[in-house]
């Protein structure tokens, strides 16, 4: 039985660019913005970085393939740099690479950075991704919202929730994130929105309206990681360590067999189960101080609450209405605004989630600071519910 990653790697510093429609910035600028903040936060020099992992998902509206765009943008001279891609879970993949490299003893200090420049596409929403020569022959091209909207059909059918009840509940998910995003100066969307506006917005993919969909943003986020010993030797106290890093990818079972009923995301269940074992979490609703989940769409966040075990099966839609996930709720969720309002520059998102936990655990979250958080979970999905990946990172105070 593997011993796992718990407390073997500490975060030395993190950075995150302002997310949003960064018409003035290219990917190189976004990378630099996040990197410089992380470097200053870590209190080290660029030359102390031994290796780097770069996450970017959509190279055609970004800076192209390979690690070279990163090593060039940050002038990382002569060190190993890798590019990773795992759809919307790309940011967490970069973190995994860096953390595992440190844990293995291969390097002392590693950089994980993710960036996406989505607003060079020319239209709202994500660029259309093709799926390979065989899949292109049979698989319909769905938009991302239509992929996730199918959770709503499955959830309604399984739990007998009416269209109206579910629409209101997922609307409340977005309402809450807008409340939080309004307190985050780095967020893409910083305005509160009333329920009426959310419920009456134009439909993008039934039943999801425009406010059920996350922001499509430019941005970058960055982490510098090392061993707890080196962190302490560099003068760091009250360390934040990695408690778990887990990943699950679809094998085709959900979309190819009867096993999946459309009301949940199996990859989240797989990754969460493994992450909880790795981190020693037995009662997530009690033990997790805050959640940053992959709320690409409101319905995704709703079912994720059940998949993470913080809501009972069939109860998340009620928990949402009861305010369980509000900033002052039992398990605050998307305290930084989430993908919904902080925005979703794909390659950056997994790292952006951890960035919020980093700020919260260090007591540096300003107006949205939670009281005495000890452990935070970041949930990062890629693909669609029936054919995708889920990456989960758990970070917390050392010794918790």
């Amino acid at each position, binding site marked *: 039985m593997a011993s796992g990653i718990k407390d073997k790697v500490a975060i030395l510093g993190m950075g995150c660019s302002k997310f949003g429609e960064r018409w003035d910035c290219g990917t190189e600028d976004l990378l630099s913005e996040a990197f410089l903040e992380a470097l200053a936060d870590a209190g080290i020099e660029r030359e102390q970085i031994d290796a780097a992992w770069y996450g970017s998902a959509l190279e055609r509206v970004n800076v192209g393939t390979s690690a070279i765009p990163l090593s060039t943008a940050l002038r990382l001279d002569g060190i190993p740099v890798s590019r990773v891609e795992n759809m919307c879970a790309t940011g967490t993949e970069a973190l995994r690479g860096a953390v595992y490299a440190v844990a293995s003893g291969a390097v002392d200090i590693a950089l994980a950075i993710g960036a996406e420049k989505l607003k060079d*596409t*020319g*239209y709202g*929403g994500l660029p*259309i991704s*093709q799926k390979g*020569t*065989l*899949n*292109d*022959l*049979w*698989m*319909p*091209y*769905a*938009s991302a*919202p*239509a*992929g996730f*909207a*199918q*959770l*709503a*059909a*499955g959830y*309604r*059918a399984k739990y007998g929730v009416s269209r109206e009840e579910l629409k209101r509940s997922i609307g409340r998910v977005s309402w809450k994130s807008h409340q939080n995003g309004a307190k985050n100066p780095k967020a893409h969307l910083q305005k509160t929105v009333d329920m009426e506006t959310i419920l009456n917005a*134009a*439909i*993008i*993919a*039934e039943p*999801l309206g425009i406010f059920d969909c996350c922001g499509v943003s430019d941005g970058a986020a960055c982490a510098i990681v090392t061993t707890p010993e080196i962190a302490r030797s560099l003068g760091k106290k009250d360390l934040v360590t990695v408690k778990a890093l887990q990943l699950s990818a679809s*094998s*085709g*079972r959900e*979309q*190819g*067999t*009867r096993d999946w*009923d*459309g009301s949940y995301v199996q990859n989240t269940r797989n990754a969460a189960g493994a992450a909880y074992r790795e981190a020693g979490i037995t009662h997530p609703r009690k033990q997790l101080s805050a959640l940053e989940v992959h709320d690409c769409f409101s319905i995704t966040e709703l079912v994720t609450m059940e998949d993470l075990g913080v809501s009972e099966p069939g109860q998340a839609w009620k928990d949402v209405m009861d305010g369980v996930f509000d900033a002052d709720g039992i398990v605050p969720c998307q305290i930084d605004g989430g993908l919904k309002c902080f925005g979703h520059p794909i390659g950056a998102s997994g790292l952006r989630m951890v960035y919020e936990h980093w700020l919260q655990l260090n007591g540096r979250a300003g107006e949205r600071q939670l009281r005495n958080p000890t452990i935070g979970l970041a949930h990062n999905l890629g693909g669609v519910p*029936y*054919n995708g990946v889920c990456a989960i990172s758990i970070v917390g105070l050392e010794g918790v």
Partner: protein
Amino acid sequence: MSSLNTTGIKSFGAFIPRRRLQRSAIAAAHGWAFPALKAQAKGERSMCGWDEDVLTMAVEAGRDCLRGGSVSNLSGLSLASTTAPYADLNNAVFVGAALRLPSHASASDTGGSTRAGLSALIAACESAADGEKMIIASEHRKAKPASVQEMQFGSGAGALSVGGGDDCIAHYLGSETVSVPFIDHFRKAGADFDYSWEERWIRDEGVAKIVPAAIKRLLQRLQLGGDKVAHFGLSGGPKRSDSFVAKLLKISPECVLPDLSAQVGDTGTAKPFLQLIDALEKAKTGDVILVASFAQGVEVVAFEMKNPKVIAGRRGLAGSVADRIEETAYMKLLSNDDQIELDWGMRAETDQKTALTQLYRASDQIFGFVGGQCRKCQAVQFPRLPHCVNCGEASTQDPYSLSDEPAKIATYSADWLMYSPSPPLYLGLVQFDSGARLLMEIVDVGADGIDVGTEVTMTFRKKERDKLRGWDRYFWKATPKS
């Protein structure tokens, strides 16, 4: 009648696109310039979806024809059309692949005029001793906006299988042909639309002189009087040509088959097939059926009904006509037929280049909708990849066809964001009773909508159009069960 006749029609099938455009909508769109069109604004005509064409309709008619039978009995397939999508590519091979026709069967295209279908049918009847063949006539007729043809034309397909033996539904009695350069209309190769001459001349100098003479010769040869004809259909001439000719031949007016103009429109090459199928659906044993197709002369064929048969699940012509979705948006006709370029936005710019190498490797999966069934765990699946989706074993799958399997919707959404030439794009996971499941596009969603559990059937359609290279991808889509 001669009892020595042992060749004839063994099965039949039909398909009419579900969308029926109201002629009043066409007239309303053009009323500002052509108020006289209002006089023709009666009834409805069939209209291809953007994803329907001669090949997809032919496949549907062919599947209908195969109900209750076996494709392995066929030694050949012939596709008749003046509007087949490819000029240099055996269109019938496409259709045959979707019907899972044995690869050793022949496949041929025929066209050149709207009588091509009947010509092919006659040829098949004359050579029926060589083996059972399926002849499909399919037409996707396009017309210039505001033309009379736009009002009159429709799209559809009919399929007939022909062979020998005592189990023929109708016996082939004989045929007659006239070939003369009477040019009532023409369409240059590559052109979009027909050019037609005056209807009165076509009727008086063409139909009235050419058709009755040919039919008389056939009836004389068969030693039949016009009064012995129980079902008579004539296509290719102006409206009411059929009753006009019937009168000359002393065929009773009630024996004239409906010209389908009120519900379907003039389907060109497919029309004589649809008329013949109409007759086969209602004829009694012993009835003589006479069908003629006028075009640069005429083809006439006579059958005698022998064994009226009802096949479970067959749509036929009556079922196809009844299976309709009323359409009033005239612009859809123009858009579907590529006669107007709407601003579909940047999402429509995606390059849809097809790897023909991959298409051939997966041809039974893509054309025939053949997935796999694992010999180890029995899981039915699509696509058929090297490892079983359920047990993970390699190389354990036998081909398993899904095109006629019952299925239901497991999850779905209506996508208003993704580009579709027919928004919204309905899609979802389709759960087959056999256990297979895959993400599919769902088409022809009517006013009742869809939900989890809605029963669906499979239909062969265009998946994407690669306009850059002139290539269309085809695959199967789900459609609510009618």
